[in-house]
């Protein structure tokens, strides 16, 4: 009897399991629901607080500023339909469209002025430093907003595309978890470690209705699981899949891959202030010992674009292609430079961030390449918090590999190498470079391009760092989903997707 009972219990459990399983597989079939896998939660949906890229890519669909970035890396109108810049390049007048917030209230010039004033207030905003060129912001009537600058500042429009300059109702509070914007989607629910659910906003100023009614950003930290979920149809899209997973998703008929440069500058940071490394010949020897092709095959599975300066070729307007020939791969010349400098048996430590396998593997290959010219490299792998403290904050390191996210304007990426800049963790110093960066924000057009071309040439020749590659982002989609747009910044444009 007792044995029979156990058997019955077992059968019941198995049936229950199967019933539950059946329920789970039929649930994921809604046609206007999109499921996107992301590895981590956002930090905060408050535009003045958020600094994480994980937030920006989702918030792009929720918030808008006066202007927004386009897939081509240009600036287009968002809440402002158009704008005028006066001849002195210091007064920007924006003309607002008729638009509504997710809570139904109309967007007023007052809301815009409030949001921008908060964005530039260091007491309130994490990103206030980016808006210090602004002298004042005020409204002219109901539909005009004026931004006055202290002096010409060419990157202004690009800075206004950032999440930090997003517009929200003046009276709004608690935006961190309940954002109110004007974008094509509004946040319905955020369950940390589970999902972020967006629903379509039917009163978007464009009058266009995105295809997907509901969008889930599902938190799946493990890329293996995410890829399998994509193959089983539980997930429709994985943005920014690491290149090492390429072989799992290529040649799969039900998937499409959109590959594009990430606009990340991966670099070998060379601490210019270390005794041996302050010698230009040693730095140039290191630069000429590095074979980028080998690194890209070995560490990035061939999925990357070479680069030779502090900008990514993903910004073709400003990237200086001539920098490729300044310090080409030449181990013999590298060795000659080393002996000229009088160093034999040079020993250096390379500190690598374990959170980023791409940078760790790149570092390992570089260490091997440097050994070939007689520089002994000891590798030290540390956790990200330790890396930030030791390498970035205290600048207590010889060599390191890291990736820096590019922005739409070259100033943001290049200004960190200015001698006095607090983000200049390679301790690079060249007064001529500093002067050029200062000049770059005052000029425009071809003149500006010439200034940055020269600055890039100087930093490459001086080896402010050895610039390696821009890794490709692999955006993998269910083949039924069309309309994917690659952006040179961290965003997922959900409204453009359809089936």
């Amino acid at each position, binding site marked *: 009897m*007792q*044995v029979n009972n*156990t058997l019955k219990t*077992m059968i019941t*459990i198995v049936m229950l*399991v*199967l019933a*539950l*399983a059946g*329920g*789970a*597989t039929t*649930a994921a079939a809604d046609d206007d629901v999109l499921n996107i896998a992301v590895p981590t*939660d956002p*930090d*905060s949906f*408050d535009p003045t*607080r958020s*600094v*994480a890229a994980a937030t920006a890519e989702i918030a792009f669909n929720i918030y808008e500023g006066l202007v927004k970035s386009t897939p081509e890396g240009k600036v287009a109108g968002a809440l402002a339909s158009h704008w005028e810049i006066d001849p002195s390049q210091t007064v920007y007048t924006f003309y607002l469209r008729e638009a509504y917030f997710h809570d139904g209230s109309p967007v007023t010039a007052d809301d815009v002025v409030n949001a921008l004033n908060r964005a530039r207030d260091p*007491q309130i905003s*994490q990103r206030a*430093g980016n808006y210090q060129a602004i002298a004042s912001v005020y409204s002219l009537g109901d539909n005009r907003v004026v931004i006055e600058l202290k002096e010409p500042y060419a990157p202004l429009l690009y800075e206004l595309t950032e999440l930090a300059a997003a517009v929200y109702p003046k009276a709004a509070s608690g935006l*961190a*978890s309940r954002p109110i914007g004007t974008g094509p989607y509004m946040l319905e629910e955020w*369950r*940390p*470690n*589970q*999902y972020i659910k967006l629903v379509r906003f039917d009163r978007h100023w464009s009058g266009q209705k995105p295809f997907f009614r509901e969008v889930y950003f*599902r*938190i*799946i*930290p*493990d890329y*293996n*699981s*995410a890829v*399998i*979920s994509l*193959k*089983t149809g*539980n997930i429709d899209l994985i943005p920014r899949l690491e290149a090492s997973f390429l072989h799992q998703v290529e040649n799969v008929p039900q998937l499409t891959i959109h590959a594009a440069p990430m606009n990340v500058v991966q670099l070998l940071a060379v601490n210019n202030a270390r005794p041996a490394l302050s010698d230009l010949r040693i730095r140039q020897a290191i630069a000429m010992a590095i074979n980028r092709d080998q690194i890209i095959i070995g560490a990035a599975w061939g999925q990357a674009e070479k680069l030779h300066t502090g900008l990514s070729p993903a910004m073709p307007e400003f990237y200086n292609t001539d920098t490729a020939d300044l310090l080409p791969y030449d181990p013999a010349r590298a060795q000659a430079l080393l002996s000229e400098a009088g160093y034999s048996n040079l020993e250096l430590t390379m500190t690598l961030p374990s*959170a980023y396998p791409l940078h760790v593997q790149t570092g390992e290959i570089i260490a091997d390449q440097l050994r070939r010219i007689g520089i002994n490299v000891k590798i030290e792998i540390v*956790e*990200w*918090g*330790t*890396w*930030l*403290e030791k390498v*970035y*904050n205290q600048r207590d390191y010889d060599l390191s590999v*890291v990736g*820096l*996210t590019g922005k739409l304007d070259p100033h943001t990426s290049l200004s960190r190498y200015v001698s006095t*800049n*607090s*983000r200049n*963790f390679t301790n690079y110093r060249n007064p001529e470079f500093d002067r050029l960066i200062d000049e770059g924000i005052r000029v425009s057009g071809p003149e500006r391009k010439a200034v940055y071309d020269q600055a890039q040439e100087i930093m490459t020749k001086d080896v402010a760092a050895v610039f390696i590659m821009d890794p490709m982002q692999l955006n993998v989609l269910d083949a039924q989903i069309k309309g994917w747009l690659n952006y040179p910044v961290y965003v997922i444009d959900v409204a453009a997707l359809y089936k």
Partner: protein
Amino acid sequence: MRYLRDRIISFAATLLLISAVTFFAVNVLPGDPALLILGTEGDPERLASLRQELGLNQPVLIRFAGWLTGMLRGDLGRSIRYSVDIAPLIKNALPVTLLLAVSGVGLALLISIPIGIGCAVRHGSLFETLSLVMTQFGMALPSFWLGLLLINLFALRLGILPPAGYTSGASLILPALALALPRAAVLIRVVRGSVLDALNQDYIRTARSKGLPQYMVLYKHALKNAAVSIAAVSGVQLTQLLGGTIVIEQVFGLPGLGQLLLAAALMRDLPLVQGLVVTSAALILAVNFGLDLVLLSLDPRLRYE
């Protein structure tokens, strides 16, 4: 009564000690939340103002005292990583881990008891040899790898279970199985050993000689005796899982305590780490207490020690 009072006092003392140790341990780690939040875009002014805002400038002891008084008032504080209150974060994650751990151990018991008894009863048979070889494999398999194999088979090839994420009860089947199999392997050996041990006792011979049928001998006498060691081992397994399903939660994308703890530790989100450590510690202490009660009821001899 005295027993209960002593247990409660030691419970509170242990919690206090554990929370103090984690607080200071996280504090000596290099890097702080301000640095991690700002990343490679940080500069000294913003670091300083963010540290001020997050209260990181105060001495460690004051911060610990502040956390402790809040905790005693039932206020776990706000998470730095998620910018929301901690209590609801833990409240949402707790059932997932609890369910996962309990079903993992439950499943392990369901698998191991019949097989273990079978091995003991058919001592020296081919069934026993095969089972023991399988348990060797089971013990050597890491749960996360087993998890990936299970996902591959049930989600990718057969398509009957979801691969990752937490959408329904079905989401827990594969992870529970991945946790259960290696633990079942251990338990099979425990069940087999203790039943075998019991079967060799004099009282079993007596029971047999008075003509009791085999299943009565097994279930009424042998298994009851073996239950003490089975309960002890599976109890320990349960406490291990309550604090240690991080990897499985990661592989299956489950929103449990483990994932929350990992995210919190990586961001040096001290209030959240503290809240989670105290929660897991309380759970583990409670399970241990329950286990003691179960053992006492199973083995009256323990009551007099």
